[in-house]
């Protein structure tokens, strides 16, 4: 279970303080697919970065499967990212000089997984997403939809419990956007991964179990679907 308890994030520029999050409390069950929507500047991406342990709350705490983020040191947060979290970005963020396979291998390299096992797992993951025949392609040789599939494979390869997707369809045409969100939905259903998806596209948000609407750093409303 992922829990955000009165989470504040305040950015400071000189003497000016800008609160990006103002006391967000949210509880996401294991295997739940949650979409966070809201206008620009509402704090969606800040929320995702905090859940992704890339940053720490100014106040409050985040607890994932019983582990409090604020109790973890830098290495603990690194380990959390390596083992429990997978990121999918709007701009895919694949390393252009590596092949699709090597990109998928990256989290396993960071985790120190031996080469042969790494290769096997990365190939398996690409195959599951229907990308096995593109393994040796560089990102520039792939379409946007294919690149995002590779990015999703990279997010999944470490078998994390939570997938964090920041506008994953933002750079895709509608057909590819639909494919990607359906893929995420499928991963959520089939493998029970918790998915926290940030989007401003309400059509995409419709795929989630719950839609959390944010405004001015606060949770404005929550709509549970199904």
């Amino acid at each position, binding site marked *: 279970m992922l829990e955000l308890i009165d989470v504040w994030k305040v950015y400071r520029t000189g003497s000016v303080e800008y609160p990006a999050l103002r006391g967000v409390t949210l509880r996401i069950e294991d295997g739940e697919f949650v979409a966070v929507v809201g206008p620009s500047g509402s704090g969606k991406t800040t929320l995702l*970065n905090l859940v*992704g342990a*890339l*940053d720490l709350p100014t106040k409050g705490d985040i607890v994932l499967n019983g582990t409090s983020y604020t109790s973890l040191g*830098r*290495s603990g947060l*690194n*380990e959390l*990212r*390596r*083992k429990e979290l997978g*990121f999918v*970005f709007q701009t895919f*963020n694949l*390393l*252009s*000089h*590596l092949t699709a396979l*090597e990109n998928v291998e*990256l*989290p396993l*390299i*960071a*985790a*120190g997984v031996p*080469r042969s096992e790494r290769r096997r797992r990365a190939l398996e993951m690409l195959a599951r997403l229907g990308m096995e025949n593109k393994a040796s392609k560089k990102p520039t040789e792939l379409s946007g939809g294919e690149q995002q599939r590779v990015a999703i494979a*990279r997010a999944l390869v*470490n078998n994390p419990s939570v997938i964090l997707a920041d506008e994953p369809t933002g750079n895709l045409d509608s057909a590819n956007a639909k494919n990607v969100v359906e893929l995420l939905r499928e991963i959520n259903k089939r493998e029970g991964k918790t998915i926290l998806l940030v989007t401003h596209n309400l059509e995409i948000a419709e795929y989630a179990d719950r839609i959390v609407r944010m405004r001015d750093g606060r949770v404005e409303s929550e709509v549970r679907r199904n």
Partner: protein
Amino acid sequence: MRPREMLVLAWSNITVHKFRSLLTTLGIVFGVATVITVIMMSSSVETYFISRFTDLFAPDTFSVAVGEVRSGTGASGFFIHQTPMITERDLAHVRSMPGVKDVYASGDLQPDVTSPIVFRGKVVSSGLGGFRIVAISPNAFTENQLLHGRSFRNGRETVVTYDVARRIAKELGNEEDVAQVLGKTVELNFVQGGVRRSVQVRIVGVLKEIPFVFQNAAYLNLDDYYDVRRTVPGSGPVRVFRVVGVRVSSVTEFDQVKSAVLEYFKTSSEAEKLRRRDAPDMGFITISAGEVTNFIREQVQLFASFVLQIGSFALLVGSIGIANIMLVNVTERTKEIGVLRAIGARQRDVLNLFLTEAGLIGAIGASIAVPVGILFGLLFLRVGPFSGVSLPVTIRPEWVPLAVGIGALVGIASGVYPAWRASRIDPVWALKYE
């Protein structure tokens, strides 16, 4: 991250910008290649000169002269400032000292500038080229020093250097066959007591080649031609010689005899009286095979250290180049750093990745530098100022790991700051970076 994966990732980053990486290595290539060229050059030149000089300077012989010894450079001034001050009495005394087998003396005659040596009416060597006419005792030359013939026995005979013999042989039709000059008569012209003298002498000996020094010289019998005199305090004018050569009876007593002879000169010799009066700034200097060897080594190393400083400077410039490019890399790859951090890479991993890249660039530069340095070394030894001399070529396999190690170290040192900066980048900011 494991070191192997780190290397693979670093290599793949380097190959993305092949041309840029290659340019970055240039400073290292130049620096390391210079070092290798200099090492090759100096060790070859040193080995060659030492072998040639030790061949010519017999291990049982040393010489003493009054000369200027420059402080800080050992005896390296001894070729420059020597003055004739050693008297007949000094020679006789040294000859009688225990452990001394033989003594010889020498002094310079002032060669005629325009035609110091003439063969069949033609000036063979010009005085402007540093031609020397040396008056020397006939026993000065050992068999080892002579390439052909023997030493002179009287004033009608001469011994010439290899170079002079070659020029005469050229006049005879075959430059290579220097032995043919034996028995030929040359005219030597010099000034003695303000009067120009011209003597016809027969060549009876040719000295072995000594590269770069004493190339143009003819030797005459001391007693027939040399008459430089000084007035010793308390007695009349006596003949004074520039150098006295001493042969010891047993090489095992060499140092002992040398100290004793030097002690005699410094305390009770007539040369000392003359030195105190006429050249108080000069001192007694000795030359022996060991000293010549040390001198050559010193000179070669002095030159080598100078060039090595240029090499080190190039390395410094190279390392600044690497640091600069690495800083550019860090900025360009900010987003990549964010991605790496997001997938769980630690700050340490990012630091090590950039350090590995910098180290690899340095090592690649050094790997290119080894063959380049060797090539330049060979070029220098084959077509440079040493082209006429067959120098031994020194190439050692250990240069490769050593150079690559140095290159990698320089690279890593240059990469420290950029890598540190990369590791400190906030991942949230990095992921937003465009």
